[in-house]
């Protein structure tokens, strides 16, 4: 009997369990999933909590419900992996042996990594929406807030869902306008990047959208500390951004047990081959989803596309054959832009987000890198898709590898 052990029952762990359960013979394989809790959060929904679009109860379901029969589920803290012994130690000192290990414990916000951020003002004038509790606290704050200077801030890349801070900005602009208080709010977007987004064409489009909304853009800002008394962000090159309300995206890091096990890089992400997701250090360990160091978005779409390929690769690998379904870093993300509109971006390791139509070239129904109502409805419908199609690992009419069909190239030429 061989054991496949999956650490993490989030998006990646759940899809992997569902897909591999269908492919592995349970007379030969035991599949076990470990997570520290039984609550599965629909994380894309956290963006909407601060504005009251979603209520907290809309976003949580039991993890167990999305795992198939025949898969064991253990709720426990993970103490460490001992790769030399093919063993995982749990918090209660139980040991689980494995033949193959999948690390899928994602990434979490760490406000305590930035001096001054978690000291006293967190939850008062300093907020974040990357944790469920943080998003709920921010909803309460916005409901009472009567305006002032709002700084939306990213500590460092990479972060989960890299478009979310921009979406928050667009939605906040629309929210304040609707409350009749937009003229009482001064908005500034503070980023360590040299533009509104990472790659040139998208940075130009999204930067123009900030400008239209009268949001100041503060670039190349590497925060050294937050001054909670004087309410300002201070950068390493001694620039200062004052705020009345700070909505920050704290440093994102992989799980601490990854570091304790000696399996992570400086941010606790597991170094893997970007095409196969196999650990660079261990031939029987894979890292899926946000937990790995692959240079593409930390996003559910990446998990979805990469796992469609991973399923086949895993079967090939356990049979000692070379893995042939190579991942290209394909990601796509809806970007809510407020007032019932949204954008969609589609890209991979080598191709930056470009304008066009998706998934059908020329037809859509979604428009790439331009606002449309269809994109907004795509995003809203996605919650149903997530629970009912994505987590169970059902086939969707989207190709796992990115396609250039439907994309407009002339903008890339400089």
């Amino acid at each position, binding site marked *: 009997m061989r054991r496949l052990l999956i650490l993490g029952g989030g998006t990646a762990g759940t899809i992997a369990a569902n897909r591999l359960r269908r492919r592995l013979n349970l007379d030969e394989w035991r599949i076990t999933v470990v997570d520290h809790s039984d609550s599965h959060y629909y994380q894309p929904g956290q963006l909407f909590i601060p504005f009251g679009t979603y209520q907290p109860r809309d976003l949580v379901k039991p993890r167990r419900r999305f795992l198939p029969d025949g898969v064991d589920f253990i709720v426990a803290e993970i103490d460490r992996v001992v790769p030399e012994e093919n063993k995982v130690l749990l918090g209660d000192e139980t040991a689980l042996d494995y033949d193959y290990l999948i690390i899928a414990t994602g990434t979490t916000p760490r406000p305590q990594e930035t001096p001054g951020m978690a000291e006293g003002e967190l939850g008062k004038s300093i907020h974040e929406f990357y944790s469920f509790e943080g998003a709920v606290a921010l909803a309460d704050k916005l409901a009472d807030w009567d305006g002032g200077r709002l700084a939306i801030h990213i500590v460092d890349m990479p972060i989960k869902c*890299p478009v979310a801070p921009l979406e928050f900005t667009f939605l906040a602009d629309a929210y304040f306008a609707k409350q009749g208080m937009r003229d009482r709010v001064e908005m500034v977007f503070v980023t360590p990047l040299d533009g509104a987004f*990472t790659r040139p064409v998208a940075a130009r489009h999204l930067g123009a959208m900030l400008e239209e909304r009268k949001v100041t853009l503060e670039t*190349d800002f*590497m925060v*050294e500390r937050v001054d909670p008394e004087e309410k300002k962000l201070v950068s*390493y090159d001694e620039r200062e951004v004052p705020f009345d309300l700070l909505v920050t995206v704290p440093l994102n890091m992989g799980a601490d047990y990854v570091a304790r096990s000696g399996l992570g890089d400086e941010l606790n992400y597991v170094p893997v081959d970007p095409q196969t997701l196999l650990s660079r250090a261990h031939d029987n360990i894979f890292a899926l989803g946000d937990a790995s160091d692959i240079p593409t978005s930390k996003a559910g779409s990446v998990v979805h596309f990469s796992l469609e390929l991973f399923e086949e690769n895993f079967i090939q690998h356990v049979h000692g054959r070379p893995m042939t379904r190579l991942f290209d870093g394909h*990601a796509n993300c809806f970007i809510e832009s407020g007032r019932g509109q949204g954008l969609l971006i589609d890209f991979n390791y080598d191709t930056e*987000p470009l304008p066009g139509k998706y998934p059908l070239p020329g037809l859509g129904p979604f428009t790439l890198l331009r606002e449309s109502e269809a994109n907004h409805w795509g995003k809203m419908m996605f919650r149903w898709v997530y629970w009912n199609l994505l987590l169970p690992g059902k086939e969707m009419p989207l190709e796992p590898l990115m396609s250039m069909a439907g994309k407009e190239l002339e903008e890339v030429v400089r």
Partner: protein
Amino acid sequence: MPVATINDRVVNVDDEGFLTDYDDWDEDLAKVLASQIGIELTEDHWNAIHFLRRDYKQTGETATLRRVTTVGGIPTKELFTLFPKKPAKKMAYIAGLPKPRGCV
């Protein structure tokens, strides 16, 4: 692919002038690259540059600022003093490595 002539040598570069071939680089070239962006290299500069070179060879990626600090042991504040305004980009430029990937 564009090329540039630096110190009478022809090297491959990208659109923004970053060297694209790891082995095109040597210390003399680094001095010229540094002077082009107004930096005179001291021992502290070399320390950072050599870390970047070593790390790239191991990982195949240009180290981020955070990695130079946590793995290379050079405080971020110092990097901003040595390579003002855009240390990650400037270090990569002088070290003859690709511009650090803006992770999307």
